[in-house]
């Protein structure tokens, strides 16, 4: 009977090898898939089990993890949840992470390579792994002013430091309370999330960088002007500015706001045309320059490029091979031209910074749990969009807009403000979007701002950029100048 015993023992060996192979498949070869399975709560528990880093604004934590007595150990908590939701995003056990909670996740949970030494230190000290703190470039007072000014209106405000590219304010309206989604009660979270999803005014969308991009309307005339200056025009170059401009090859015409004439003799300078935002003049200028130079200039400021700040920013769009009438429409920021509010802030910022567009960024400093600096974002030139001389000329023209043009509502006593209004048509039955892009002080710019109020906000059909958006930009710039005077900017 020895022979069959040997054979059985070989079969048993094969069976055990099969088990070992199956265990290897589960624990090593296929472990990645199993660990990423959304039904696997272990990954989540492990993450929640560690102290997740905070978000810091002006030296104060705005998002942090509070120890609690449940399987997750920590509860994500917020001091001004709604105000910073667009930047920080939410951190949910059901719906995962968004915005900076997602892009900075490895730093926040402490697993990033740059935190290796900190981890090692924690290990030796017998401490729990701790995530890093993320210090944002946002300023609390600017966020607050921008949010207050927007109020219930749908829209967005973006403020940049023209010299560095720091995003000083990024407000989108309406917004949401991330605390609702951070709850550990999954039913509660599900309900809150469904409510937010079902709302028609899409509060989960960050309009500043990732919403449906907007037609920039007359604010796009800044790009036309920059292209014209580069093409050899100067501020005094006379443009053809009729009351109505016929579009070649069509029966359509372009008129001015309210159907008014721009000037008595159908002629006006480039500076004046920008000052009163004369549509026919810029439409004609567009056809004269042709689409190529305008397209290039728009791209010089960042159009068609998607960037990460580190939130990913939707690329602003341009029409492809527009014919003459389409070029005319595009030149006044209609047709297929689209821009994010951040893109428009970058236009203002580039003009303000002598033609150099700095790369916008939201994260200033990353600090490990022991407060040592892990990473500091250095300002970086994004694009050189204009010559210094052209930028200064355009700045002067923009000062004219605020001094005695369409943007007088943005005037700040004792400070020269450069700006441009925009009133973008959105269709036959809907009110136009009100835009304002600006920077101040004009001679030594500290802050560049873009404001959009969707569909005229509370004013509706009668809205213009000058009436609705300019006062908001004014308030934000005023706060910015205040901060600069206190040495905080």
């Amino acid at each position, binding site marked *: *009977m*020895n*022979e*069959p*015993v*040997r*054979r*059985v*023992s070989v079969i*048993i*060996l094969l*069976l*055990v090898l*099969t*088990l*070992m192979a*199956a*265990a*290897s498949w*589960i*624990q*090593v070869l*296929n*472990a990645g898939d*199993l*660990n990423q*399975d959304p*039904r*696997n*709560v*272990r*990954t989540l*528990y*492990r993450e929640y089990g560690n102290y997740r880093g905070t978000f810091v604004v002006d030296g104060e934590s705005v998002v942090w993890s509070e120890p609690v007595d449940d399987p997750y150990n920590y509860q994500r908590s917020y001091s001004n949840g709604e105000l910073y939701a667009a930047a920080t995003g939410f951190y949910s056990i059901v719906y995962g992470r968004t915005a900076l909670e997602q892009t900075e996740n490895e730093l926040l949970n402490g697993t990033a390579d740059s935190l290796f030494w900190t981890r090692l230190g924690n290990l030796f000290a017998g401490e729990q792994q701790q995530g890093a703190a993320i210090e944002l470039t946002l300023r609390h007072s600017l966020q607050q002013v921008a949010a207050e000014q927007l109020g219930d209106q749908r829209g967005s405000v973006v403020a940049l430091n023209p010299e560095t590219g720091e995003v000083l304010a990024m407000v989108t309206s309406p917004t949401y309370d991330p605390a609702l989604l951070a709850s550990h009660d999954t039913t509660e979270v599900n309900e809150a999330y469904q409510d937010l999803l079902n709302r028609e005014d899409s509060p989960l969308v960050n309009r500043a960088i990732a919403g449906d991009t907007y037609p920039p309307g007359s604010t796009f005339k800044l790009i036309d002007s920059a292209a014209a200056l580069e093409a050899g025009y100067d501020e005094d170059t006379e443009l053809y500015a009729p009351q109505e401009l016929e579009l070649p090859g069509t029966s359509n015409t372009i008129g001015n706001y309210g159907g008014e004439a721009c000037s008595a003799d159908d002629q006006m300078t480039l500076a004046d045309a920008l000052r009163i935002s004369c549509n026919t003049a810029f439409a004609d200028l567009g056809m004269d320059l042709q689409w190529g130079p305008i397209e290039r200039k728009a791209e010089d400021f960042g159009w068609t490029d998607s960037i990460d700040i580190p939130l990913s920013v939707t690329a602003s769009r341009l029409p492809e091979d527009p014919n003459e009438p389409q070029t005319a429409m595009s030149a006044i920021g209609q047709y297929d031209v689209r821009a994010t509010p951040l893109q428009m802030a970058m236009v203002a910022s580039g003009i303000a910074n002598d033609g150099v567009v700095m790369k916008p960024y939201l994260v200033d400093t990353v600090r490990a749990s022991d407060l040592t600096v892990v990473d500091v974002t250095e300002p970086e030139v994004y694009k050189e969009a204009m010559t210094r001389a052209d930028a200064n000329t355009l700045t002067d023209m923009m000062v004219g807009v605020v001094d005695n043009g369409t943007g007088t509502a943005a005037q700040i006593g004792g400070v020269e403000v450069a700006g441009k209004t925009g009133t973008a048509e959105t269709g036959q039955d809907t009110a136009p979007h009100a835009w304002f892009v600006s920077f101040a002080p004009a001679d030594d710019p500290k802050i560049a701002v873009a404001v959009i109020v969707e569909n005229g906000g509370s004013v509706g059909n009668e809205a213009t950029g000058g009436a609705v958006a300019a006062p908001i930009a004014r308030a934000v710039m005023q706060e910015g100048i205040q901060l600069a005077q206190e040495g905080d900017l």
Partner: protein
Amino acid sequence: MATVAVVTARAGRRAELALMGLTWVIVVLARALVDYNAAYLELVDLAIYGAVWAAMMVTAHFVLDKVAPHADPVLLPAVFALNGVGIAEIRRIDYAEGTSFGGQQMIWAVVGVTAMIVALLLLRDHRKLRRYTYTAGFVGLALYLLPLVPGLGITVNGARIWISVLGHSVQPGEFAKIALVIFFAGYLVTNRDTLALAGPKFLGMRFPRPRDMGPLLLVWAAAMLIMVYERDLGASLLFFGIFLGMLYIATQRLSWVLTGMGLFFIGGAFAALTIPHVRARFDAWLHALDPEVYSSGTSEQLVRGLFGMASGGLFGTGLGEGRPDLVPYAESDFIIASLGEELGLTGLMAILTLYLIIVQRAFRTSIGVRDGFGKLLAGGLGVAIALQVFIVVGGVTRVIPLTGLTAPFLAYGGSSLLANWLVIALLLRVSDLARRPSGEED
């Protein structure tokens, strides 16, 4: 006359003691680690724990030295290691769940080791067991069918494999296993010649004579009864598998095994198609990760176990550092998944290797012992342990459908632990004879 000096090789008792020393270190360290990670490391408790293990090991050693000096020296250290690691993991789950299974399992370990010692003291020669062949057969069958008695059997998780004795639930199937191995060994050693007779040739293979098919059909019917009425696929498979393995060892006829497997397959397929409980098990096995099957709850436990093992990876989270408590029955049916999570693939491989060592020592004993009954007994016990491990671990790792058996020596459960310690007692007893130098009789 010249006297030949018989070298009394004290076959490996010292090596056994050394291995047990190593086992003791592993067992006590495992518990220390679990306590430390639960922030409850009491040195006094740990010292008592270490002392109890040392006492068990040393007592077992001295008893073997006296009553079975030639017994296999590897079996005990391997079994102690499994038992100790199991208790550490159970204790670890106790911390997470607020239960106290670890302490109870420790008591059962003491009971099991005592039972082993008593069995070795009472049974000085395994051949005596052959006298009780039919008694063992009757006892085995009765134990298997006991849970079906109304008022006595308890249904747990759909399977009716428990009985209630004085307020305690007992799993008689674990003991039936031993009785049936004794019965099969006695029966087959007597009838192997008849059963080995060649019958009709079919598909190029000699099949047994139809008139000899009686016992096979009877055992098959009993296995089907267990599957259908006790709804215990695992016990049924184990019971029938042990019989087939021993039948093969006795007759060396593959045709018996194939016939038996064919019969079982037909029965299993029929059950899978008609019995909802069995069918659900098959569904959960084949489509475990399918969202529909998962959300219906049938594969949830299995998949949670897979998640646990996957999170352990190659080296595991460390004892007390994972979340094995997220898997239902982490301390019993799914202790393999718990250990896989916390000790990693490395740890699981080590555990499987320990089982492999135990089983191979059983087969080595079977080959070494001279009497046919002993060969079948040791071989049958080896097959029983191996099959049980395969059915349990295979179920958890999705090699086969999940069933309700428990991992020998690791899983929480008094019946299982006690029965398996008795299996070890029998193996030690047979191995003592197998390894005894010729000419030395006591």
